[in-house]
């Protein structure tokens, strides 16, 4: 008697079909999960950049004087999806300058008698123009100490010289690599520095070619507390 072993063609076809179906489902779920995970990572990165900027800028602006603040406007055209689309957008990448004290805790940073701050440096926030994201560079420029609250003359007169950090300056710090836009203005009436900033992050694209680029924008309105006279 012939023994009955193995599978019939119909059985093999059904099982192959089931396997293909399961593999397809697993692949789709893996793709969705992977996309979600990468988007989550991008958002975490954007949040970190927002927090880093917020911490530095809030302190610098609060400790400064509104009469020393100055913004140099600049726009640049950036690609929305480099390599995948020719679509571009014009964004602000303004530079900002605020008077500062090198050591706010030192007694020598204040004028004897009046107690007024002896402004001995300026913080410069300079964005670069790379597309789609630039760097946000923060650096200090030292000047002769003075109680006068005034914008940094060189920054006002030669704006182009300050969009890049000077070579050899040890106080250069790159705050963010994913800067999308920075719009700065000085509200003299309310004595506030206004900044609208956006960061962009991207962790590749989906299998279908859709970009996973994300943008996070927010605004800051800070009053420099060492302004005198105050309104």
């Amino acid at each position, binding site marked *: 008697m012939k023994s009955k072993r193995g599978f019939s063609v119909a059985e093999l076809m059904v099982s192959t079909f089931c396997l293909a179906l399961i593999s397809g489902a697993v692949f789709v779920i893996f793709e969705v*999960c992977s996309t979600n995970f990468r988007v989550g990572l991008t958002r975490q990165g954007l949040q970190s950049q927002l927090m880093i900027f917020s911490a530095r800028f809030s302190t610098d602006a609060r400790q400064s004087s509104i009469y020393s603040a100055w913004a140099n406007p600049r726009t640049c055209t950036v690609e929305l999806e480099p390599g995948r689309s020719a679509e571009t957008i014009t964004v602000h990448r303004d530079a900002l300058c605020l008077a500062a004290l090198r050591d706010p805790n030192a007694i020598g940073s204040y004028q004897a008698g009046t107690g007024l701050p002896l402004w001995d440096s300026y913080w410069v926030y300079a964005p670069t123009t790379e597309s789609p994201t630039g760097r946000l560079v923060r650096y200090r420029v030292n000047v002769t100490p003075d109680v006068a609250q005034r914008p940094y003359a060189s920054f006002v007169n030669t704006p182009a010289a300050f969009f890049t950090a000077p070579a050899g300056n040890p106080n250069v710090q790159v705050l963010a690599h994913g800067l999308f836009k920075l719009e700065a203005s000085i509200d003299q009436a309310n004595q506030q520095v206004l900044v609208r900033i956006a960061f962009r992050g991207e962790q590749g694209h989906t299998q279908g070619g859709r970009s996973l680029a*994300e*943008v996070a924008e927010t605004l800051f309105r800070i009053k420099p507390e060492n302004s005198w006279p105050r309104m």
Partner: protein
Amino acid sequence: MAMALLLLVLTFVAGLFLHLFVASSKSLDSSIALEIADSVLNQATDSDPGSWAAMAETQSIYNRDPRTTTEFHTVMSFPSTPTIEHDMGQIYEVSVEVYWMDQPSKTRHQYGRQSVKLSKAIYVSNMRIPPPPPP
């Protein structure tokens, strides 16, 4: 049995990543809204109580999608009379609620509240210094 187990594991993993996605969305939205609320409170700190109501505004913010903006709405709430009153000035407790996508104080399934709220005690001095002469 094996199929059911596989299906269960896949559903669990997909759910887990979906939660991660929603959590990251909310976290980013909240961070942006908190900065907006803080900036409105900073503005209120240096303004007269009469102008606080006008600070309720809508900001169009690029959030997530680089092509479209999301609207973040601001709602100001403060008492009509000061919380503490003194000859030198008054203290008001001012609250700012920033909401997005929907109505204030509304929640969405698996997302939670779509708003953040910040409060600050603002001191309004009775002594005003005249503005400086123009340069």
